[in-house]
């Protein structure tokens, strides 16, 4: 049992290590200095308080997107629609942030709830179609991403602005930003969203592992027939699982809308956060605590990467390669397990 736990912990670690090693091989082959490259990366992610602030800021939506993907995974669904749900969540949060003027203790929660509701609504559609018509959620969520993108752009242009490309800035009372956090991180864009993200991780863990509803959701995810036999309402649970997943994604959007950007602008393409969320969830083993760690890693990689071109001449894309490799190695955990057992045997 405990050696199994150890293995479960070692696998992502080794995967990261292998990813980093192969990444340096790529750098050496293409004539870059891997030590300079990774030093720049590390400096750019943790070098001083400013960078740490940026890393945590980047990590915030990653946690929530990761939770969204993981929640669906754990309940037998594959939510590729996190990206779209995030975008509508962002829109809803900004909308509420712009449209009302309320005391902060009402306005901010309201804006976040609006984002959660929007994300949930966006996920409700694929959930409902799957439960009611057995339509494949993967393809519906892919389609919903595009619909979210275009519809949001249209709303920004026609409702949130006068044919402009961005909304107004949200009112201070809906903002997650904090002068205090900015001051201790030398004006990074760090905001209070990280607290919400951590809270969400706790909620996900508690909901899934400790409650009867979570039990039902997991049961339906594993075996719909047995769940039906046991008296659970399979359709409702599928919809609910999707809705909760979407709500996490929507809140991820609120982090951008109320924290990082304080507005929303017309998007030419996807933010990528939703897709990165898949990687975050996987590396985190679809487990709330693991997701926090893997979000930290990916946040650091993304933010740190920006330092690589100027300091070491290495293209930022190297980080995408490293991330891809890490996912590969995590996925191929069978390989790592084999290696580990071999090492263990030889150790004996």
């Amino acid at each position, binding site marked *: 049992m405990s050696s199994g736990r150890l293995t479960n912990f070692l696998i992502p670690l080794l995967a990261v290590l292998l990813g980093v090693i192969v990444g340096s091989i790529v750098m050496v082959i293409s004539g870059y200095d891997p030590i300079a490259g990774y030093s720049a990366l590390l400096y750019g992610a943790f070098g001083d308080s400013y960078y740490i602030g940026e890393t945590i800021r980047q990590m915030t939506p990653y946690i929530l997107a990761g939770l969204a993907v993981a929640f669906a995974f754990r309940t037998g669904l594959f939510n590729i629609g996190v990206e779209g749900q995030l975008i509508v969540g962002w829109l809803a949060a900004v909308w509420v942030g712009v449209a009302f003027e309320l005391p902060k203790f009402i306005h901010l929660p309201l804006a976040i709830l609006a984002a959660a509701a929007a994300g949930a609504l966006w996920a409700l559609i694929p959930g409902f179609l799957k439960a009611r018509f057995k339509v494949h959620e993967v393809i519906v969520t892919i389609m919903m991403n595009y619909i979210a993108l275009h519809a949001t752009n249209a709303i920004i242009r026609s409702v949130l602005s006068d044919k402009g490309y961005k909304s107004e800035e949200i009112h201070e009372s809906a903002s997650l930003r904090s002068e205090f956090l900015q001051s201790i991180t030398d004006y990074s864009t760090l905001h209070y969203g990280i607290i919400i993200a951590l809270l969400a991780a706790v909620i996900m863990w508690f909901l899934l592992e400790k409650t009867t509803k979570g039990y039902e959701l997991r049961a339906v995810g594993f075996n719909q027939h047995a769940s039906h036999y046991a008296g659970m309402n399979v359709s409702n649970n599928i919809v609910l699982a999707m809705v909760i997943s979407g709500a996490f994604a929507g809140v991820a959007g609120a982090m951008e809308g109320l924290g990082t950007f304080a507005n929303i602008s017309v998007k030419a393409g996807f933010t990528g956060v939703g897709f990165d969320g898949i990687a975050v969830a996987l590396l985190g083993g679809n487990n709330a605590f693991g997701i926090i760690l893997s979000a930290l890693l990916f946040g650091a990689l993304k933010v740190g990467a920006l330092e690589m071109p100027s300091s070491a001449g290495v293209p930022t894309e190297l980080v995408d390669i490293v991330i891809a490799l890490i996912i590969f190695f995590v*996925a191929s955990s069978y390989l790592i397990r084999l290696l580990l057992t071999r090492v263990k045997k030889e150790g004996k």
Partner: protein
Amino acid sequence: MGVFEILQIIIPSAIFFAAPLIFTALGGVFSERSGVVNIGLEGLMVIGAFTGVVFNLTFAEQFGELTPWLALLVAMIVGAVFSLLHAVASISFRADQVVSGVAINFLAIGLSLFLVKKMYGKGQTDQIQIGFDKIDIPVLSDIPIIGPLLFENGYIPSYIAIALAFVVWYVIFKTPFGLRLRSVGEHPMAADTMGINVARMRYIAVMLSGALAGIGGAVYATIISRDFSHATISGHGFMALAAMIFGKWHPLGAMGAALFFGFAQSLSIVGQTIPFLKEVPTVYLLIAPYVLTILALTGFIGRADAPKALGTPYIKGKR
């Protein structure tokens, strides 16, 4: 504008939109029929587009008019080789196939942009000079009504894509290879007991998907974008995946779905010039293809029956 004129505008562009999707979706059919989910089609298209453009830029001088064809060939090979990663991970190392596919997507875009920066010192390539030509197919284009709609102003790769769908259909449903491929996707252990090498079949299928998605990407880059950058392939692989599911894992269905996407896409663009559609706010036209797809899935075909063993690694002796 009369209906005929409108169709004459919409249909050819529907077909050229559809062609890369058809190639890629057919690749997806091979892979998924063998039981391996391939969400990495997007990344494989990226690799195909990258290879196609780089080859074209590098060898246009030497090969002249032949260049784009050779570029497709090379993209096909590179796509197949690249897909080996997915094969190794998901077949030999029992990786979660969705995860491995996601990794393919990340790796493809990361690696190709990295290489572009390395090779050209900038984030996108130059424009290729030699592409495919628009042609009117002799004889067929002279058929009244249908001729001008379907056989004028087309690109040869588009017609190849459509013909290929029939070839793939034949291979999958009429040949021993196809029967074995499908058996491996439905019930790998049964196939194993019949002496079929499950892993080998799946490797072949995944590499075929890499090859076809490679062609799909290269066709897209050669005909449409003519260069390669981060935005060249943006979601086309996912659309191809959707087309394959929409088409119920059937080659002809996948082709039909891809053509439908092409048509919807083309309508959403050309629609802005069609008198009665002109009044409709653009956003409705932009989201139309996606909404239509969802409606179609819900309404006409309901549940799509995936190959039974789809997504599960085959481990000998496990039940």
